[in-house]
């Protein structure tokens, strides 16, 4: 079976690449190019993150969004593994 490559795009930025199911199918060359670009990610800065722009593969700095808040019920379900 031929290996399928994909990328995951969120708001115009590449958040992940993978092999198998999911995302938007890409060529092996694009997959390799994205991973090569990942190796060139600028150094982390406190409170910021680097996002790879889809298409150009340029790095774009963005303030790290706040993490999501969870309520008590959701916290309990995460702890117990019971989610329904």
């Amino acid at each position, binding site marked *: *079976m031929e290996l399928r490559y*994909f990328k*995951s*795009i*969120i708001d115009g*930025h*590449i*958040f*992940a*690449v*993978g*092999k*198998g*199911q*999911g*995302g*938007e199918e890409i060529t092996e060359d694009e997959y390799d190019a*994205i*991973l090569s*670009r*990942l190796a060139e*990610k600028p150094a*982390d800065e406190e409170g910021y*993150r*680097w*996002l*790879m722009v889809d298409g150009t593969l340029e790095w774009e700095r963005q303030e*790290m*969004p*706040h*993490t*999501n808040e*969870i309520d008590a019920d*959701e916290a309990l*379900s*995460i*702890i117990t*593994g019971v*989610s*329904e």
Partner: protein
Amino acid sequence: MALDMLVDATQLDSALSSVADAIRAKGGTSAQLAFPAGFVSAVQAIPTGVTVNEVTLTADVANTNELCAAIMPGLPRYQRAVFWYKTGQSGLQGRIMGAYVYKSGDTSYGGGRTRYSYGYSANDGTAKAGDTYCWIGDLPAWN
């Protein structure tokens, strides 16, 4: 005329039947198998293993919604799968995590949230660019 070997037809038939039975059992079929082409095609049709999917984050993620969208994008409703960490999370390599993914806005499950379960959350800041996750096989059909 020289004879290299004499073959007992009953014995040969019995032996081929037992081979065919083994192929059918492994291949999950009850179809008749003609020798030799049927045997060959049946063996070739036997699955060789499970599909291992792999995904590598190219960005630090801020929350579980982003994590789900990055790892299993495009899921229309609700899925679960067995995930494990391949690289990236110190001390967690090779460990299995459960995954529950809800489509944003679907109120049928958990109020339409997207999240992971079984002790993992992006909130602890461990989901970083370069982390790789794996999961086995095809994602199941809708629940």
